[in-house]
């Protein structure tokens, strides 16, 4: 409460100083100008410069102080910190007003400040990546101090067991095994099913839209397909668990097979439906940018339209199509809600898609929504899994970008 009031007072004081800077600066500039001197900039620009030189350093001091308090744990009383930055603001005000001189380039100074502000905003996206890397790696490292990396990568049993008791001081956490192979097997199984659905449907839709469809159909079909990508994943998860899974169980029962209600096919198929538009829209763009001369050449040699597409257009567009499939795959690997709601919780190393199996993302969610201590091995294992997930999706994305770049350079297309 105390701090809140202090901050409020600080903000209003800063606002007042800023207003003061603006009006005094403008008045001074106007006075100089009306005295007959020619100036480099407009009075308003001098005024804005005064405001910037008042508020900028003061906010910077406050932010640096707050950061030092948070990061280094230094104990600076808030009152002194805010008072110090107000003093800086007052100094800035004096300097800013002193700069209202005919031969000072106020506009260029403002330009430099704005440029710096924009550049620092651009750096935030870099910080985000580093933040993700840093947060995942630091927790993953403390996990690997408890359990060996090799066991994590090659172990075939995932049973966190009573590792949460160990962190509470009871039990020794023995018997907890973190072998991630069954999780990755489940993830890849579901991803494979998804791609099995999405690649043929997505690619053929793209072929139809770019090669056959009249303009009218195209303008309707493309946004309609995009709707599939816009449906929230939690909704797909519900659809998979409530509607699709029982259908799969019934169909399997019809053929005399036994399927679990948490089988891998239901989330796989629904995930496939979800990534159809990712694959179709990128493939569509790629097929469209295959040069028309290639098609005409092929048709002139007497190939039918179908043969042209199969033997000329698709091979030419292949790098782009593969890159679309890889993007879809990285989507499917990182997809969470569909598998949390429709896939199983039991780590299960099997090749039968009708059994229940779990995935990496399911275990991450399970580990972090349980009521374990944060420092327990199970919670930290989520970050280790996250690290592997990050590495895999990053690689897929990079390969996909490289493929599309190769395609672009080969055919000199610029809009991809």
């Amino acid at each position, binding site marked *: 409460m105390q701090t809140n009031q202090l901050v409020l007072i600080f903000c209003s004081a800063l606002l007042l100083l800023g207003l003061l800077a603006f009006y005094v600066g403008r008045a001074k500039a106007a006075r100089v100008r009306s005295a007959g001197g020619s100036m480099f900039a407009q009075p308003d620009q001098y005024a804005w410069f005064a405001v910037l030189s008042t508020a900028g350093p003061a906010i910077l001091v406050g932010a640096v102080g707050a950061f030092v308090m948070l990061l280094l744990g230094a104990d600076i009383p808030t009152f002194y910190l805010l008072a110090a930055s107000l003093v800086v603001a007052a100094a800035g005000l004096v300097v800013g007003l002193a700069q209202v001189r005919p031969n000072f380039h106020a506009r260029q100074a403002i330009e430099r400040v704005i440029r710096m502000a924009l550049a620092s905003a651009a750096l935030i996206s870099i910080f985000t990546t580093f933040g993700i890397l840093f947060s995942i790696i630091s927790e993953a490292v403390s996990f690997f101090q408890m359990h060996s990396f090799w066991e994590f990568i090659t172990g075939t049993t995932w049973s966190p067991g009573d590792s949460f008791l160990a962190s509470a001081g009871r039990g020794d956490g023995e018997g907890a095994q973190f072998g991630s192979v069954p999780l990755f097997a489940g993830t890849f199984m579901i991803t494979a099913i998804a791609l099995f659905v999405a690649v043929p449907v*997505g690619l053929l839709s793209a*072929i139809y839209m770019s*090669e056959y469809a009249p303009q009218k159909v195209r303008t309707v079909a493309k946004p309609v397909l995009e709707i599939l990508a816009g449906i929230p994943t939690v909704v797909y998860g519900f659809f998979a668990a409530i509607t699709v899974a029982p259908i799969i169980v019934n169909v399997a029962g019809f053929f005399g097979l036994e399927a679990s209600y948490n089988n891998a096919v239901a989330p796989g198929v629904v995930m496939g439906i979800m990534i159809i538009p990712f694959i179709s829209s990128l493939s569509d763009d790629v097929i469209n940018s295959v040069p028309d001369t290639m098609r005409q050449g092929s048709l002139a040699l007497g190939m039918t339209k179908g043969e042209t597409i199969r033997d000329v257009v698709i091979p030419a567009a292949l790098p782009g199509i593969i890159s679309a499939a890889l993007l879809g795959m990285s989507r499917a690997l990182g997809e*969470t809600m569909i598998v949390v709601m429709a896939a199983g919780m039991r780590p299960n190393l099997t090749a039968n898609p009708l059994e229940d199996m779990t995935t990496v993302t399911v275990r991450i969610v399970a580990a972090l929504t349980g009521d374990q201590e944060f420092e327990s091995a199970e919670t930290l294992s989520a970050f280790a899994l996250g690290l592997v*997930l990050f590495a895999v999706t990053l690689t897929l994305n990079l390969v996909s970008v490289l493929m599309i770049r190769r395609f672009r350079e080969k055919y000199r297309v610029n809009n991809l």
Partner: protein
Amino acid sequence: MSHSFDDISQQLRRRHRKSARLKWISMGALGLAGLFLVLFFADMLNKGLPAFQQAYINTEVNYTEEAATDARQAIAEDLVPIVSRTEIREIPKEIRNDEDLIGTSEQKWLLVNGEVDQYLKGNRNKLNEEEREAIDERVESGQVELAFNRTFFTQGDSKTSERAGILAAVVGTVMTMIVTLAISFPIGVMTAVYLEEFAPDNRLTQAIEININNLAAIPSILFGLLGLAIFINFFGVPRSSPLAGGMTLALMTLPVIIISTRAALRSVPDSIRHAAFGVGCSRWQVVRDHVLPLAMPGIMTGSIIGLAQAMGETAPLIIVGMVAFIPDVGASFTEAATVMPAQIFTWSGEPEHAFVEKTAGGILVLLAVLISLNAFAVLLRKKFERRW
């Protein structure tokens, strides 16, 4: 080897048939995708529309002295198993709020419990034969009826299906989206302006560009891990709060806004910039007074689409704890809240059959909001799109 004319024309027919087959197959694939969509919406409507109806019972509520302590005294004894438990529990609260009520009685429509409600809608329920007949009689006499479900839109979550509503989640979503937009819109637009209008073409700029494209493709759950480790554990932002959720989603929406803003800025023709430079504007003046206003419709469209995407996102919010049970509707940035997708997720985990209907109802509300947001974005683009 010699080919007769018949051989060749037969071969040609075969080839043309094959060619036509590809056309039909590819058309079928597109139709299949459309069919998925139709089936999906039909299924959701079928499951969700009953949630907008709810059974009510017309009965006399006696506000007596006894009712203030034992709420069940307030209504006729044979109705106690029919009326919703949570509804009965409200009666002593009403009496406490208004002492004058004691001694009066009032004819009221009360919520009926979930099992009876499900029976009336023809779904699976736990009522036995006798109870069903009793209900049927009351329906015929007009004492029990299905009406528009006000509770669903005016209440927060509840453990009993008949009283569970989506309002708390809607409020939570609005608060979270305010935080998300307040952070990601300015930073996103500033980044895009820097990259398009100011940045020199050097290594740093290229690194930022690659990084943004990469961020757009990172699985959303990893943003949740970031939010948990950095915002909650490190900076001490309150767990489950719209602030924590909004900040996490802001980082996720950032690439979407940056990419669409850059596209919008790029579509402003260079002649505008040259003209502005020609009359002596500085770079910032060109951007502020000429480029940004012209690119604004595009920027808004992109931001709305990014917002809709963030609104449907669940995984990172689960990680930062926004799946809390929120029975009361309250608007605060720092207290525990839930959002619509998270509410849908919570309901989908409830064992009672009546919650399936609530879940689908919540999904319909969410889809309606998302579709209208996207439609608004499309309209905005159509209205202000300019071909140079």
